[in-house]
């Protein structure tokens, strides 16, 4: 009887262990699939011409598969989105975490989660019909669907993660720090920017890195506003990102062209993994303090 019960408990334990390990299994599955399907094309094309080739003509008679335009577009696009999004998100976070009265804070917090809940295709749709024609008229360029439009859309899309994570970090700053600074004669605003913000810096850095991850992985919204032509990146030209390169040709590709798309996904995945490592570095630094 007792043995039977013990066996039963062991089986249950085993089942839960399996369920616990399933996330690890999924990560392995994704990694293995991307590596296995991404390597062949890189082998055929060659690592150097693939990563640093400047022309992507997958459907030409003599196709060439260089993804440097996509890599650079993704990097520039993300950097641009950060340049616009980080100051706005950061300043909003400081205001909401430290200064805003509770009512304003509650309303704005709802607004920010609303912004996070808007599907990316809706961002794309609104961008397509307001930003794209707006840019065309304002800057007098032939087509508004450009890197610039994508940067603005991405900047808006990363706002919620930057604001939320920075706010959490700022709210966790011990009150004593601020009290000490106020007692020494600093004004509240000086205290927030010279004491609270430096104290919360690793959390704010994590917020920025999280935003970078969001921006570099976004596909649909960017697809709708960036024009999707594989040019080398330039602010007012139609461009293609790593994500949109995968999405735009997937449905009709085959053979080496499709394999090359998997290789692009692998490159994107490596970028994301790198960002994860950086993110963990900042979060860990926060815990150890």
């Amino acid at each position, binding site marked *: 009887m007792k043995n039977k*019960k013990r066996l*039963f408990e062991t089986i*249950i334990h085993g089942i*839960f*262990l399996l*369920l*616990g390990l*399933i*996330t*690890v299994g999924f990560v392995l599955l*994704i990694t293995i*699939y*991307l590596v296995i*399907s991404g390597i062949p094309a890189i082998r055929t094309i060659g690592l150097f011409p693939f990563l640093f080739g400047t022309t992507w003509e997958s459907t030409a008679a003599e196709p060439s598969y260089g993804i440097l335009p996509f890599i650079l577009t993704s990097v520039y696009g993300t950097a641009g989105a950060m340049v616009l999004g980080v*100051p*706005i*998100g*950061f300043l*909003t976070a*400081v205001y909401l975490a430290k*200064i805003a009265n509770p009512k304003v804070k509650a309303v*704005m917090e*709802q*607004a*920010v989660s*609303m*912004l996070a*809940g*808007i*599907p*990316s*295709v*809706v961002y*794309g*749709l*609104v961008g*397509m*019909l307001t930003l794209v024609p707006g840019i065309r008229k304002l800057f007098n360029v032939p087509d508004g669907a450009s890197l610039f439009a994508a940067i603005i859309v991405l900047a808006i899309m990363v*706002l919620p993660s930057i604001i939320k994570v920075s706010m959490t970090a700022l709210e966790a700053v011990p009150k004593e720090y601020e009290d000490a600074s106020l007692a020494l*004669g600093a*004004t509240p*605003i000086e205290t927030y*920017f010279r004491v609270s913000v430096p104290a919360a810096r690793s959390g704010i850095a994590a917020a920025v890195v999280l935003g970078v991850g969001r921006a570099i*992985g*976004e*596909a*649909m919204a960017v*697809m*709708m506003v960036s024009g999707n032509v594989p040019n080398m990146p330039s602010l007012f030209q139609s461009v293609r990102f790593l*994500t949109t390169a995968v*999405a735009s040709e*997937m*449905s009709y590709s085959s053979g080496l062209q499709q394999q090359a*798309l*998997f290789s692009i*996904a692998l490159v994107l*995945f490596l970028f994301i993994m790198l*960002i*994860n490592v950086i*993110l963990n570095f900042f979060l860990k630094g926060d815990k150890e303090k």
Partner: protein
Amino acid sequence: MLTNKVSGKRKLYIWCMRSLMWIATILTGGLVLFFILYVLIRGIPNITWEFFSTKPSYLSGQIGILPDILNTLYIILATLILVIPLGVGAAIYLTEYASNKRMVTLIEYAAETLSGIPSIIYGLVGMLFFCQFLNMKTSLLAGAFTLVIMNLPTIMRTTQESLKTVPQSYREGAFGLGAGKWRVIRTVVLPGCVDGVITGCILSIGRILGESAALLFTAGFAHALNGLFRGLNSPGATLTVALYVYAKEQGEFGIAFAIAAILMILALTINLATMVVSKYFQRRKNL
């Protein structure tokens, strides 16, 4: 007076910072307001009863989104049914069973990694693994399986958080009365995580509603009107995917905005639901 000693330079700094913060906050708030109003104003006039209740027909040239609504429901249902046991099980393992610290770190790291992977990569791997390797073809079910992987970390995290609030003394009490581990989990731990699971479900529904890149290659974009079981085995567009197809490929902006307005209203509802649910559970816990 002490305050008079604040020098001009410092005053300028304070004034600058204060105005910058104001501008940033107003900009953020204004953006949200603009998005909501713009989409609702352009979308709502296009919503009619016909639009809700019919399927697209090339013969009469009309477009209805009933199939897309049903597809969305099917895919939400299938995903939740699959993801809840997995997520809850993983959370229970982490909080109740795992004694090896390394194992916990490994699993939590894996969950974090999963939540950072962009949806386009999920779409690609889902297509390779579920559609091709497991031979599900392009179908709602393959889409649902892909979404299961995406939403697993969410359910896991919310469940774990609610399990942490179950007092240790409850467990000890049950053990003291001679209950086995499984019995303790079934009678003490599981009832304690209901709020976490519900919160996780709401968050997941929000994510599924907004998902497009992961579904485009796994669930496809057909608009056929099907029952639940036939629907799951055939390709179909969810509302979000339908929006994308209508806007990008067909240039039907009126329809796209109508769907966007519906999605916007759903997103608002989900935000509200999250708030209400978390307040309700908090109040009950404090009693």
